[in-house]
């Protein structure tokens, strides 16, 4: 596989996790510092299922995603009713607990040495189709009443409650969906790089995704996808060490939040309408 293709595959996989963060943090203002742990869960569970138990890939993927969603329900149930700070804190603790368990359960996970010999099952077609479907899903989700509810809850939770929105259920739904996204991204990565280790899934990764969302603009799906591609591709092209790269991300986001808090793209969305309109007969355009 060529270098460019390898990198593109990783970017596609990570972008799916970023899309999960976009729904959770961007649209709903919930900060999960344990998103990467869900990615780790997806990666480890699916890899172990396939390598140790010879399960078919598709089934392993399904189990991995369900495990992540199940844990998200538990964590969310305990923490989403209270202040958002506590949710961030609890998810941080959750992330540490998960990576702790991965390191500790040496005979299942290989411990800190990592888990290797995963077959390469993530094909370019699978990765790019998955990303396309993920983008399409988030787009539809945002266009439906869930999108409006998210914005309503984010900007005035009490007002959302008294007009009948079950805020807790909404947050739980979004959290579980975002966990599923992260877990699926983890599966794609594991079967792409063929190796996983606990250190990949620390809180830094979770924060990086939050940074990407705020870089592109938390109110712009286009911004999030483009931001994700830019920020994930740049370090590969420029070949920084991880520490320098992370530091540059930090400086970038500090500058953006101070000068342009709504992100590079603000609320701008790429729209197919102008292109579609070109093909429409003239009189239909006049109606609007």
């Amino acid at each position: 596989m060529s270098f460019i293709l390898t990198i593109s595959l990783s970017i596609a996989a990570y972008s799916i996790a970023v899309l999960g963060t976009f729904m959770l943090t961007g649209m709903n203002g919930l900060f999960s510092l344990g998103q990467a742990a869900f990615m780790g869960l997806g990666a480890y569970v699916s890899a172990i299922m396939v390598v140790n138990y010879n399960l078919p890939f598709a089934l392993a993927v399904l189990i991995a995603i369900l495990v992540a969603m199940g844990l998200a329900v538990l964590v969310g149930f305990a923490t989403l009713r209270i202040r958002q700070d506590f949710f961030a804190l609890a998810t941080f603790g959750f992330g540490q607990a998960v990576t702790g368990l991965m390191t500790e359960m040496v005979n299942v996970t290989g411990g800190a040495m990592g888990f290797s010999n995963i077959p390469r099952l993530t094909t370019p077609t699978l990765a790019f189709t998955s990303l396309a479907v993920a983008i399409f899903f988030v787009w539809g989700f945002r266009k439906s009443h869930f999108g409006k509810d998210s914005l309503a809850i984010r900007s005035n939770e009490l007002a959302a409650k008294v007009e009948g929105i079950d805020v807790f259920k909404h947050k739980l739904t979004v959290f579980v969906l975002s966990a599923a996204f992260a877990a699926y991204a983890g599966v794609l990565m594991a079967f792409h790089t063929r190796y996983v280790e606990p250190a990949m899934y620390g809180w830094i990764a979770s924060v990086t995704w939050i940074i990407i969302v705020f870089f592109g603009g938390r109110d712009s799906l286009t911004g999030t996808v483009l931001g994700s591609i830019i920020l994930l591709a740049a370090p590969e092209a420029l070949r920084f060490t991880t520490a320098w790269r992370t530091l540059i991300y930090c400086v970038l986001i500090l500058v953006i939040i101070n000068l342009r808090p709504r992100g590079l793209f603000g609320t701008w969305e790429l729209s197919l309408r102008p292109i579609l309109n070109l093909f429409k007969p003239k009189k239909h355009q006049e109606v609007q």
Partner: protein
Amino acid sequence: MDKAVIVDMNHLTKMFGGLCAVNDFSGHVKENQIIGIIGPNGAGKTTILNMVSGICPPTSGEIIFKGKNLCGMEPHKVNQMGIARTFQNIRLFEDMTVLDTVMTAYSWRAPYNPIETLFSSPRVARFDREIKEKSMHWINRVGLTEQAHAVAKSLPYGMQRRVEIARALASEPLVLLLDEPGAGLNQTEVQGLVDLIQDLFSDLHLSIMLIDHRMEVIMQLCEWIYVQDFGKKIGQGTPEQVQKDPLVIKAYLGEDISNA
């Protein structure tokens, strides 16, 4: 002639720490009736509305609506049962147009789950179309047709109040709670609002609980009035009775007159 009681509040008490915000309040709203609660600041008026709308559950007492006790019920459940409200300090959503804001009141009725949004199923599109139509109806009703696609928070204060009322109406409630709807409005705007409430009341067969400290609003609209002072009910009656009650005059009206 006699109307049935729709919301029955019995011995409501709310303590915050050691402080008694509302002390043993009893009262009721009948079908198609406007009642008012008046009283100076800190009298516990908003707390009563907060208890009814589920925002802060009472320390003791009960609120009976449709044969059920609302105490301890979460706000969204109370709303879904048919009680909607507005806020004294307007609570609108950032960046949202008037139409979108009003549409969110229908969200909980959506018949589909998040997975269906992936396929953009016809049900999703149909629901969206339906609630857009219904929401526009309420927006027209409060007289904001021109502003339907403007960002709600960018509108003048008086219009923002109307957006909140439209949003509350979109819950299609039996009971409407209005928390100081006249606050921050000028004289003409207040009169417009009073007319609007009067219209809605007679057209929609609503029951309304109204809080205000402006006498003219309360006296024009309300059929029955409860007077609160320092968390305690000090009087009740028709507007004429209340205006003559010496206790009420001393606690509230007298103060107002001397200030004016």
